[in-house]
Protein backbone atom coordinates (compact mmCIF):
# COMPACT_ATOMS: atom_id res chain seq x y z
CA UNK A 1 0.00 0.00 0.00
CA UNK A 2 1.24 3.46 -0.80
CA UNK A 3 2.90 5.41 2.02
CA UNK A 4 0.26 8.15 1.71
CA UNK A 5 -2.42 5.66 2.76
CA UNK A 6 -0.32 4.32 5.62
CA UNK A 7 0.75 7.78 6.68
CA UNK A 8 -2.92 8.87 6.70
CA UNK A 9 -3.79 6.04 9.07
CA UNK A 10 -0.89 6.99 11.32
CA UNK A 11 -1.85 10.68 11.37
CA UNK A 12 -5.48 9.78 12.05
CA UNK A 13 -4.50 7.73 15.11
CA UNK A 14 -1.96 10.28 16.29
CA UNK A 15 -4.21 13.35 15.83
CA UNK A 16 -7.34 11.68 17.20
CA UNK A 17 -6.05 9.49 20.02
CA UNK A 18 -2.58 10.84 20.74
CA UNK A 19 1.02 9.83 20.37
CA UNK A 20 0.83 7.13 23.07
CA UNK A 21 -1.90 5.29 21.20
CA UNK A 22 0.14 5.41 18.00
CA UNK A 23 3.15 4.03 19.87
CA UNK A 24 0.96 1.23 21.21
CA UNK A 25 -0.14 0.45 17.64
CA UNK A 26 3.49 0.45 16.50
CA UNK A 27 4.27 -2.12 19.19
CA UNK A 28 1.18 -4.26 18.65
CA UNK A 29 1.60 -4.31 14.85
CA UNK A 30 5.32 -5.07 15.29
CA UNK A 31 6.18 -2.41 12.73
CA UNK A 32 9.83 -2.06 13.70
CA UNK A 33 9.74 1.68 12.88
CA UNK A 34 7.90 4.66 14.34
CA UNK A 35 6.76 6.52 11.26
CA UNK A 36 5.44 5.76 7.82
CA UNK A 37 7.01 7.77 5.03
CA UNK A 38 4.31 9.28 2.82
CA UNK A 39 6.40 8.96 -0.31
CA UNK A 40 7.47 5.31 0.04
CA UNK A 41 5.52 2.12 -0.57
CA UNK A 42 4.85 -0.68 1.89
CA UNK A 43 3.57 -4.25 1.73
CA UNK A 44 -0.24 -4.46 1.97
CA UNK A 45 0.14 -6.77 4.97
CA UNK A 46 1.73 -3.92 6.96
CA UNK A 47 -1.39 -1.80 6.46
CA UNK A 48 -3.64 -4.65 7.55
CA UNK A 49 -1.57 -5.22 10.69
CA UNK A 50 -1.83 -1.55 11.60
CA UNK A 51 -5.61 -1.44 11.07
CA UNK A 52 -6.26 -4.59 13.09
CA UNK A 53 -3.89 -3.56 15.87
CA UNK A 54 -5.48 -0.10 16.07
CA UNK A 55 -9.05 -1.45 16.04
CA UNK A 56 -8.12 -3.81 18.87
CA UNK A 57 -6.40 -1.14 20.96
CA UNK A 58 -9.21 1.36 20.41
CA UNK A 59 -11.79 -1.39 21.00
CA UNK A 60 -13.72 -0.44 17.86
CA UNK A 61 -14.90 -2.48 14.90
CA UNK A 62 -12.42 -2.05 12.03
CA UNK A 63 -15.13 -0.74 9.69
CA UNK A 64 -16.10 2.03 12.13
CA UNK A 65 -12.48 3.06 12.40
CA UNK A 66 -12.09 3.08 8.61
CA UNK A 67 -15.10 5.34 8.28
CA UNK A 68 -13.63 7.64 10.96
CA UNK A 69 -10.43 7.78 8.91
CA UNK A 70 -12.46 8.96 5.91
CA UNK A 71 -14.07 11.72 7.97
CA UNK A 72 -10.71 12.69 9.46
CA UNK A 73 -9.16 13.04 5.99
CA UNK A 74 -11.66 15.77 5.10
CA UNK A 75 -12.28 17.46 8.43
CA UNK A 76 -8.99 17.60 10.29
CA UNK A 77 -6.95 20.77 9.93
CA UNK A 78 -3.73 18.79 9.47
CA UNK A 79 -4.95 17.34 6.17
CA UNK A 80 -6.84 20.35 4.82
CA UNK A 81 -5.31 19.93 1.39
CA UNK A 82 -7.32 16.78 0.66
CA UNK A 83 -10.64 18.53 1.22
CA UNK A 84 -9.51 21.25 -1.17
CA UNK A 85 -8.39 18.78 -3.81
CA UNK A 86 -11.76 17.03 -3.65
CA UNK A 87 -13.64 20.31 -3.90
CA UNK A 88 -12.09 20.77 -7.33
CA UNK A 89 -14.48 17.98 -8.36
CA UNK A 90 -17.44 20.34 -8.67
CA UNK A 91 -19.35 23.36 -7.46
CA UNK A 92 -22.12 21.34 -5.82
CA UNK A 93 -22.23 18.03 -3.97
CA UNK A 94 -24.05 16.50 -6.91
CA UNK A 95 -21.34 17.61 -9.33
CA UNK A 96 -18.75 16.30 -6.90
CA UNK A 97 -20.57 12.98 -6.60
CA UNK A 98 -20.81 12.63 -10.37
CA UNK A 99 -17.07 13.21 -10.63
CA UNK A 100 -15.93 10.67 -8.02
CA UNK A 101 -15.10 8.07 -10.65
CA UNK A 102 -12.39 10.46 -11.85
CA UNK A 103 -10.74 10.20 -8.45
CA UNK A 104 -8.33 7.32 -9.18
CA UNK A 105 -7.12 9.19 -12.28
CA UNK A 106 -6.84 12.46 -10.38
CA UNK A 107 -4.88 10.74 -7.64
CA UNK A 108 -2.58 9.19 -10.21
CA UNK A 109 -1.96 12.58 -11.82
CA UNK A 110 -0.65 13.86 -8.50
CA UNK A 111 1.17 10.72 -7.37
CA UNK A 112 1.78 8.22 -10.18
CA UNK A 113 2.38 5.33 -7.75
CA UNK A 114 -0.83 5.92 -5.80
CA UNK A 115 -3.38 3.35 -6.92
CA UNK A 116 -6.90 3.74 -5.61
CA UNK A 117 -9.54 1.08 -6.25
CA UNK A 118 -11.49 1.62 -9.46
CA UNK A 119 -14.94 3.01 -8.75
CA UNK A 120 -18.12 3.73 -10.61
CA UNK A 121 -21.16 5.73 -9.71
CA UNK A 122 -24.56 4.95 -11.15
CA UNK A 123 -27.87 6.66 -10.60
CA UNK A 124 -30.37 4.04 -9.46
CA UNK A 125 -33.34 6.37 -9.28
CA UNK A 126 -33.60 10.17 -9.11
CA UNK A 127 -31.40 11.29 -6.22
CA UNK A 128 -30.32 7.74 -5.37
CA UNK A 129 -26.88 6.54 -6.37
CA UNK A 130 -24.86 3.42 -6.04
CA UNK A 131 -21.11 3.66 -5.66
CA UNK A 132 -19.43 0.45 -6.73
CA UNK A 133 -15.77 0.08 -5.95
CA UNK A 134 -13.34 -2.79 -6.40
CA UNK A 135 -12.87 -4.54 -3.06
CA UNK A 136 -9.16 -4.82 -3.67
CA UNK A 137 -7.95 -3.85 -1.17
CA UNK A 138 -11.03 -4.45 0.95
CA UNK A 139 -12.13 -1.67 3.29
CA UNK A 140 -11.92 1.39 1.05
CA UNK A 141 -15.74 1.33 0.90
CA UNK A 142 -15.91 2.28 4.56
CA UNK A 143 -13.30 5.00 4.13
CA UNK A 144 -15.35 6.29 1.17
CA UNK A 145 -18.43 6.45 3.42
CA UNK A 146 -16.55 8.71 5.83
CA UNK A 147 -15.25 10.87 3.01
CA UNK A 148 -18.68 11.22 1.35
CA UNK A 149 -20.35 12.07 4.65
CA UNK A 150 -17.77 14.75 5.42
CA UNK A 151 -17.87 16.16 1.87
CA UNK A 152 -21.69 16.38 2.02
CA UNK A 153 -21.30 18.44 5.19
CA UNK A 154 -18.68 20.53 3.47
CA UNK A 155 -21.04 21.35 0.60
CA UNK A 156 -23.98 21.75 2.98
CA UNK A 157 -25.89 18.85 1.42
CA UNK A 158 -28.09 16.36 3.27
CA UNK A 159 -27.35 12.74 2.34
CA UNK A 160 -28.17 9.28 3.59
CA UNK A 161 -25.38 6.75 3.21
CA UNK A 162 -25.49 3.01 3.61
CA UNK A 163 -22.85 0.36 3.25
CA UNK A 164 -24.61 -2.22 1.12
CA UNK A 165 -21.95 -4.89 1.43
CA UNK A 166 -19.95 -6.96 -1.02
CA UNK A 167 -21.15 -8.06 -4.43
CA UNK A 168 -19.06 -9.87 -7.03
CA UNK A 169 -15.80 -8.65 -5.52
CA UNK A 170 -17.04 -5.07 -5.25
CA UNK A 171 -17.93 -2.97 -2.27
CA UNK A 172 -21.24 -1.14 -2.66
CA UNK A 173 -22.14 2.12 -0.98
CA UNK A 174 -25.60 3.55 -1.54
CA UNK A 175 -25.95 7.31 -1.52
CA UNK A 176 -29.26 9.17 -1.28
CA UNK A 177 -29.06 12.87 -1.91
CA UNK A 178 -32.00 14.23 0.11
CA UNK A 179 -31.29 17.93 -0.19
CA UNK A 180 -28.55 19.74 -2.09
CA UNK A 181 -28.44 22.88 -0.02
CA UNK A 182 -29.61 21.76 3.39
CA UNK A 183 -27.16 23.91 5.30
CA UNK A 184 -24.57 26.58 4.67
CA UNK A 185 -21.53 24.75 3.35
CA UNK A 186 -17.93 25.73 3.81
CA UNK A 187 -16.62 28.18 1.24
CA UNK A 188 -14.16 27.08 -1.38
CA UNK A 189 -11.84 29.44 -3.23
CA UNK A 190 -10.05 28.16 -6.29
CA UNK A 191 -6.98 30.06 -5.17
CA UNK A 192 -5.14 28.57 -2.24
CA UNK A 193 -4.86 30.52 1.00
CA UNK A 194 -7.37 33.24 0.06
Amino acid at each position, binding site marked *: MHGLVNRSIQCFIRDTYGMDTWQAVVQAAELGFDNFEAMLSYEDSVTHQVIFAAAKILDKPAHTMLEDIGTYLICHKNVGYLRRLLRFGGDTFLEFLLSVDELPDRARLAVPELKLPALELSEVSPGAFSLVMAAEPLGFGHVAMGILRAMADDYGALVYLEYAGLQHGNEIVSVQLLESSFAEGRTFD*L*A*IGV
Partner: protein
Amino acid sequence: MGMCDPVVSMPPKILDRLLPMHLLLDAAGVITRVGPTLEKLRGDETLTGQRLDDVFALRRGGGKCWSAQLEDLVHSRLRLHFCRPPCTTFKGILMPMPDGGYLLNLSFGIAVIDAVREYRLTSSDFAPTDLAVEMLYLVEANTAVLDESKKLNMRLQGARLAAEQQASTDTLTGLKNRRAMDEVLARMSFLNSSFAVMQLDLDFFKAVNDTMGHAAGDKVLQVVAQILTNETRMIDLVARVGGDEFVLIFDQMDDVDQLVKIAERIIARLEEPVVFEGKTCIISGSVGLAISSFYDQPDVDKILSDADLALYASKHAGRARVTIYSPELRANPLPEPSDLPELTNAVSS
Protein backbone atom coordinates in the same frame (compact mmCIF):
# COMPACT_ATOMS: atom_id res chain seq x y z
CA MET B 1 -17.30 53.81 -38.09
CA GLY B 2 -20.14 53.43 -35.59
CA MET B 3 -20.84 50.45 -33.40
CA CYS B 4 -22.48 47.76 -35.44
CA ASP B 5 -24.54 44.82 -34.35
CA PRO B 6 -22.26 41.83 -34.75
CA VAL B 7 -23.39 39.37 -37.33
CA VAL B 8 -22.80 36.29 -35.26
CA SER B 9 -24.91 33.30 -35.98
CA MET B 10 -24.31 32.09 -32.45
CA PRO B 11 -26.64 33.51 -29.77
CA PRO B 12 -24.65 35.63 -27.28
CA LYS B 13 -25.55 33.40 -24.33
CA ILE B 14 -23.91 30.44 -26.01
CA LEU B 15 -20.88 32.53 -26.85
CA ASP B 16 -20.66 33.66 -23.22
CA ARG B 17 -20.75 30.11 -21.92
CA LEU B 18 -18.30 28.63 -24.40
CA LEU B 19 -15.93 31.61 -24.59
CA PRO B 20 -16.38 33.58 -21.37
CA MET B 21 -13.27 35.62 -22.14
CA HIS B 22 -14.04 36.73 -25.68
CA LEU B 23 -14.24 40.18 -27.23
CA LEU B 24 -16.04 41.20 -30.38
CA LEU B 25 -14.47 44.06 -32.32
CA ASP B 26 -15.63 46.09 -35.23
CA ALA B 27 -13.42 46.55 -38.29
CA ALA B 28 -11.76 49.59 -36.71
CA GLY B 29 -10.80 47.74 -33.55
CA VAL B 30 -13.48 49.12 -31.24
CA ILE B 31 -14.84 46.68 -28.67
CA THR B 32 -18.50 45.90 -29.27
CA ARG B 33 -19.08 43.02 -26.86
CA VAL B 34 -17.24 41.45 -23.90
CA GLY B 35 -17.53 37.95 -22.41
CA PRO B 36 -18.69 37.81 -18.76
CA THR B 37 -15.40 36.66 -17.19
CA LEU B 38 -13.37 39.28 -19.02
CA GLU B 39 -15.91 41.89 -17.98
CA LYS B 40 -15.48 40.82 -14.36
CA LEU B 41 -11.71 41.40 -14.52
CA ARG B 42 -12.03 45.16 -15.02
CA GLY B 43 -14.48 45.77 -12.21
CA ASP B 44 -16.51 48.93 -12.88
CA GLU B 45 -14.68 49.83 -16.09
CA THR B 46 -16.79 49.41 -19.21
CA LEU B 47 -14.80 47.87 -22.03
CA THR B 48 -17.46 48.10 -24.69
CA GLY B 49 -16.90 51.19 -26.80
CA GLN B 50 -13.19 51.45 -26.01
CA ARG B 51 -10.52 50.83 -28.61
CA LEU B 52 -8.76 47.51 -28.22
CA ASP B 53 -5.34 49.16 -28.11
CA ASP B 54 -6.48 51.42 -25.26
CA VAL B 55 -7.24 48.36 -23.15
CA PHE B 56 -4.61 45.85 -24.20
CA ALA B 57 -0.96 46.13 -25.13
CA LEU B 58 0.44 43.63 -27.54
CA ARG B 59 3.57 41.79 -26.46
CA ARG B 60 4.57 40.83 -29.90
CA GLY B 61 6.17 42.46 -32.96
CA GLY B 62 8.54 45.45 -32.82
CA GLY B 63 6.27 47.82 -30.95
CA LYS B 64 3.95 48.34 -33.88
CA CYS B 65 0.64 50.02 -33.27
CA TRP B 66 -1.45 46.93 -33.51
CA SER B 67 -4.85 48.46 -34.10
CA ALA B 68 -3.60 49.67 -37.46
CA GLN B 69 -2.93 46.16 -38.58
CA LEU B 70 -5.55 43.94 -36.94
CA GLU B 71 -5.94 42.02 -40.14
CA ASP B 72 -2.25 41.10 -40.04
CA LEU B 73 -2.70 39.48 -36.65
CA VAL B 74 -5.53 37.10 -37.44
CA HIS B 75 -4.90 33.36 -37.04
CA SER B 76 -1.64 33.82 -35.14
CA ARG B 77 -0.93 33.28 -31.44
CA LEU B 78 -1.05 36.54 -29.55
CA ARG B 79 0.35 37.52 -26.20
CA LEU B 80 -1.09 40.63 -24.65
CA HIS B 81 -1.65 42.31 -21.34
CA PHE B 82 -3.85 44.98 -19.83
CA CYS B 83 -2.45 48.48 -20.35
CA ARG B 84 -3.60 49.55 -16.89
CA PRO B 85 -2.93 47.63 -13.67
CA PRO B 86 -3.39 44.89 -12.81
CA CYS B 87 -1.41 44.13 -15.97
CA THR B 88 -2.54 40.52 -16.26
CA THR B 89 -1.15 38.70 -19.28
CA PHE B 90 -3.23 36.71 -21.74
CA LYS B 91 -2.88 34.34 -24.61
CA GLY B 92 -5.22 35.06 -27.43
CA ILE B 93 -6.37 34.31 -30.93
CA LEU B 94 -7.95 36.85 -33.27
CA MET B 95 -10.34 35.64 -35.95
CA PRO B 96 -12.08 37.61 -38.71
CA MET B 97 -15.86 37.64 -38.60
CA PRO B 98 -18.26 37.69 -41.55
CA ASP B 99 -19.32 41.26 -40.72
CA GLY B 100 -15.80 42.59 -41.26
CA GLY B 101 -15.14 42.73 -37.52
CA TYR B 102 -13.12 40.36 -35.36
CA LEU B 103 -13.51 37.85 -32.56
CA LEU B 104 -10.68 37.89 -30.03
CA ASN B 105 -10.72 34.98 -27.59
CA LEU B 106 -8.46 35.14 -24.56
CA SER B 107 -7.19 32.77 -21.93
CA PHE B 108 -4.88 33.26 -18.96
CA GLY B 109 -2.44 30.60 -20.06
CA ILE B 110 0.06 29.91 -17.32
CA ALA B 111 -0.97 33.15 -15.56
CA VAL B 112 -4.20 31.44 -14.48
CA ILE B 113 -2.79 30.67 -11.01
CA ASP B 114 -2.25 34.34 -10.22
CA ALA B 115 -5.39 35.45 -12.04
CA VAL B 116 -7.64 33.19 -9.96
CA ARG B 117 -6.19 34.73 -6.81
CA GLU B 118 -6.18 38.30 -8.09
CA TYR B 119 -9.77 38.26 -9.36
CA ARG B 120 -11.29 35.70 -6.97
CA LEU B 121 -12.48 33.58 -9.89
CA THR B 122 -14.61 30.49 -9.41
CA SER B 123 -15.02 27.46 -11.61
CA SER B 124 -18.17 28.99 -13.12
CA ASP B 125 -15.98 31.74 -14.59
CA PHE B 126 -14.37 29.15 -16.86
CA ALA B 127 -15.92 27.20 -19.68
CA PRO B 128 -16.71 23.67 -18.45
CA THR B 129 -14.35 22.32 -21.11
CA ASP B 130 -11.54 24.63 -20.05
CA LEU B 131 -8.71 22.78 -18.33
CA ALA B 132 -7.97 25.75 -16.06
CA VAL B 133 -9.62 24.17 -13.02
CA GLU B 134 -7.80 20.88 -13.64
CA MET B 135 -4.59 22.83 -13.85
CA LEU B 136 -5.28 24.51 -10.51
CA TYR B 137 -6.02 21.11 -9.06
CA LEU B 138 -2.74 19.75 -10.38
CA VAL B 139 -0.72 22.67 -9.09
CA GLU B 140 -2.22 22.23 -5.65
CA ALA B 141 -1.85 18.46 -5.65
CA ASN B 142 1.75 18.80 -6.76
CA THR B 143 2.47 21.32 -4.04
CA ALA B 144 1.10 18.94 -1.42
CA VAL B 145 3.08 16.04 -2.84
CA LEU B 146 6.22 18.14 -3.16
CA ASP B 147 5.86 19.17 0.48
CA GLU B 148 5.82 15.53 1.49
CA SER B 149 8.80 14.79 -0.73
CA LYS B 150 10.70 17.70 0.77
CA LYS B 151 10.00 16.42 4.26
CA LEU B 152 11.23 12.98 3.26
CA ASN B 153 14.37 14.47 1.74
CA MET B 154 15.04 16.47 4.86
CA ARG B 155 14.66 13.40 7.04
CA LEU B 156 16.96 11.43 4.76
CA GLN B 157 19.44 14.29 4.78
CA GLY B 158 19.32 14.36 8.58
CA ALA B 159 19.93 10.62 8.74
CA ARG B 160 22.83 11.00 6.32
CA LEU B 161 24.44 13.75 8.37
CA ALA B 162 24.04 11.67 11.50
CA ALA B 163 25.66 8.71 9.71
CA GLU B 164 28.54 10.87 8.50
CA GLN B 165 28.97 12.30 11.96
CA GLN B 166 29.16 8.78 13.34
CA ALA B 167 31.61 7.76 10.70
CA SER B 168 34.04 10.51 11.70
CA THR B 169 33.43 10.15 15.43
CA ASP B 170 34.90 7.75 17.93
CA THR B 171 31.77 6.22 19.45
CA LEU B 172 33.27 5.62 22.92
CA THR B 173 34.57 9.14 23.55
CA GLY B 174 32.70 11.29 21.04
CA LEU B 175 36.04 12.61 19.81
CA LYS B 176 36.96 12.60 16.13
CA ASN B 177 38.60 9.52 14.68
CA ARG B 178 41.61 9.04 12.43
CA ARG B 179 39.48 9.48 9.29
CA ALA B 180 38.33 12.89 10.46
CA MET B 181 41.88 13.83 11.43
CA ASP B 182 43.22 12.90 8.01
CA GLU B 183 40.54 15.05 6.41
CA VAL B 184 41.36 18.05 8.57
CA LEU B 185 45.09 17.71 7.96
CA ALA B 186 44.55 17.35 4.24
CA ARG B 187 42.46 20.52 4.27
CA MET B 188 45.05 22.46 6.24
CA SER B 189 47.81 21.30 3.98
CA PHE B 190 45.77 22.35 0.97
CA LEU B 191 45.07 25.77 2.49
CA ASN B 192 48.70 26.20 3.55
CA SER B 193 47.52 27.26 6.99
CA SER B 194 49.82 27.18 9.99
CA PHE B 195 49.01 24.56 12.59
CA ALA B 196 50.49 22.58 15.45
CA VAL B 197 50.28 18.84 16.06
CA MET B 198 50.32 17.28 19.51
CA GLN B 199 50.70 13.54 19.80
CA LEU B 200 49.47 12.39 23.20
CA ASP B 201 49.84 8.91 24.70
CA LEU B 202 48.31 8.05 28.04
CA ASP B 203 50.79 6.78 30.59
CA PHE B 204 49.85 3.85 32.87
CA PHE B 205 46.59 3.33 30.98
CA LYS B 206 47.43 -0.29 30.23
CA ALA B 207 47.72 -0.91 33.96
CA VAL B 208 44.24 0.51 34.57
CA ASN B 209 42.81 -1.72 31.88
CA ASP B 210 44.66 -4.82 33.10
CA THR B 211 43.96 -4.50 36.82
CA MET B 212 40.54 -2.87 36.86
CA GLY B 213 38.97 -4.10 33.66
CA HIS B 214 37.77 -2.52 30.45
CA ALA B 215 34.85 -0.73 32.07
CA ALA B 216 37.28 1.26 34.17
CA GLY B 217 39.47 1.85 31.10
CA ASP B 218 36.46 3.12 29.15
CA LYS B 219 35.54 5.46 31.96
CA VAL B 220 39.07 6.85 32.04
CA LEU B 221 39.04 7.38 28.28
CA GLN B 222 35.78 9.31 28.54
CA VAL B 223 37.22 11.51 31.28
CA VAL B 224 40.34 12.08 29.15
CA ALA B 225 38.17 13.06 26.19
CA GLN B 226 36.34 15.58 28.35
CA ILE B 227 39.65 17.08 29.54
CA LEU B 228 41.06 17.33 26.03
CA THR B 229 37.89 18.99 24.78
CA ASN B 230 37.84 21.45 27.66
CA GLU B 231 41.50 22.39 27.25
CA THR B 232 41.27 23.12 23.53
CA ARG B 233 39.36 25.63 21.46
CA MET B 234 36.31 24.85 19.34
CA ILE B 235 38.36 25.20 16.18
CA ASP B 236 40.97 22.69 17.29
CA LEU B 237 40.61 19.02 16.49
CA VAL B 238 40.92 16.29 19.10
CA ALA B 239 41.07 12.78 17.67
CA ARG B 240 41.43 9.39 19.27
CA VAL B 241 43.60 7.50 16.81
CA GLY B 242 44.39 4.37 18.84
CA GLY B 243 43.50 2.66 22.14
CA ASP B 244 45.19 5.30 24.31
CA GLU B 245 46.65 7.49 21.58
CA PHE B 246 45.32 10.93 20.77
CA VAL B 247 46.22 13.60 18.26
CA LEU B 248 45.42 17.26 18.84
CA ILE B 249 45.60 19.69 15.95
CA PHE B 250 45.68 23.40 16.69
CA ASP B 251 44.60 25.58 13.80
CA GLN B 252 46.46 28.88 13.18
CA MET B 253 48.77 28.36 16.13
CA ASP B 254 52.57 28.62 16.13
CA ASP B 255 53.32 30.05 19.56
CA VAL B 256 55.58 27.35 21.07
CA ASP B 257 55.38 28.68 24.63
CA GLN B 258 51.62 28.81 24.48
CA LEU B 259 51.44 25.26 23.14
CA VAL B 260 53.77 23.94 25.82
CA LYS B 261 51.59 25.60 28.46
CA ILE B 262 48.51 23.94 27.01
CA ALA B 263 50.26 20.56 26.97
CA GLU B 264 51.42 20.93 30.56
CA ARG B 265 47.95 21.93 31.67
CA ILE B 266 46.52 18.87 29.92
CA ILE B 267 49.05 16.60 31.61
CA ALA B 268 48.30 18.12 35.00
CA ARG B 269 44.61 17.52 34.53
CA LEU B 270 45.16 13.97 33.30
CA GLU B 271 46.97 13.27 36.56
CA GLU B 272 43.91 14.12 38.63
CA PRO B 273 42.65 10.78 40.01
CA VAL B 274 39.54 9.23 38.45
CA VAL B 275 37.29 7.24 40.78
CA PHE B 276 35.57 4.21 39.28
CA GLU B 277 33.42 1.92 41.43
CA GLY B 278 35.18 2.99 44.59
CA LYS B 279 38.68 2.56 43.18
CA THR B 280 41.00 5.31 42.09
CA CYS B 281 42.68 5.24 38.70
CA ILE B 282 45.78 7.31 38.20
CA ILE B 283 47.21 8.02 34.77
CA SER B 284 49.30 10.65 33.13
CA GLY B 285 50.24 11.62 29.61
CA SER B 286 53.26 12.12 27.39
CA VAL B 287 53.20 14.69 24.63
CA GLY B 288 55.21 15.31 21.48
CA LEU B 289 54.82 18.61 19.68
CA ALA B 290 55.57 19.73 16.13
CA ILE B 291 54.54 22.97 14.46
CA SER B 292 54.13 23.63 10.75
CA SER B 293 56.14 26.85 11.00
CA PHE B 294 59.24 24.70 11.79
CA TYR B 295 59.33 23.71 8.15
CA ASP B 296 60.02 25.54 4.94
CA GLN B 297 57.62 23.29 3.15
CA PRO B 298 55.29 21.74 5.70
CA ASP B 299 54.36 18.17 4.90
CA VAL B 300 51.54 16.67 6.91
CA ASP B 301 53.00 13.19 7.17
CA LYS B 302 56.40 14.52 8.17
CA ILE B 303 54.93 16.76 10.87
CA LEU B 304 52.86 13.89 12.27
CA SER B 305 55.85 11.60 12.35
CA ASP B 306 58.07 14.28 13.94
CA ALA B 307 55.49 14.90 16.64
CA ASP B 308 55.44 11.16 17.20
CA LEU B 309 59.21 11.13 17.54
CA ALA B 310 59.00 13.95 20.10
CA LEU B 311 56.31 11.97 21.97
CA TYR B 312 58.62 9.01 22.06
CA ALA B 313 61.37 11.21 23.50
CA SER B 314 58.93 12.30 26.25
CA LYS B 315 58.22 8.69 27.13
CA HIS B 316 61.86 7.86 27.08
CA ALA B 317 62.68 10.78 29.35
CA GLY B 318 60.36 9.42 32.03
CA ARG B 319 56.83 10.21 30.80
CA ALA B 320 54.41 12.93 31.93
CA ARG B 321 56.17 15.62 30.00
CA VAL B 322 56.19 17.62 26.75
CA THR B 323 58.90 17.40 24.12
CA ILE B 324 59.15 19.80 21.21
CA TYR B 325 60.43 18.22 18.03
CA SER B 326 63.92 19.18 16.94
CA PRO B 327 66.15 17.62 14.26
CA GLU B 328 68.56 16.36 16.97
CA LEU B 329 65.90 13.80 17.95
CA ARG B 330 66.36 12.16 14.57
CA ALA B 331 70.13 12.35 14.78
CA ASN B 332 70.29 10.42 18.08
CA PRO B 333 67.91 7.44 17.88
CA LEU B 334 66.44 6.25 21.16
CA PRO B 335 65.84 2.61 22.13
CA GLU B 336 62.64 0.93 20.90
CA PRO B 337 59.49 1.62 22.96
CA SER B 338 59.30 -2.03 24.06
CA ASP B 339 62.49 -1.47 25.98
CA LEU B 340 60.70 0.94 28.25
CA PRO B 341 59.43 -0.61 31.46
CA GLU B 342 55.61 -0.34 31.77
CA LEU B 343 54.97 1.11 35.19
CA THR B 344 52.26 -0.61 37.18
CA ASN B 345 51.67 1.75 40.06
CA ALA B 346 48.53 3.08 38.41
CA VAL B 347 45.99 1.69 40.82
CA SER B 348 45.56 2.38 44.47
CA SER B 349 42.60 1.46 46.61
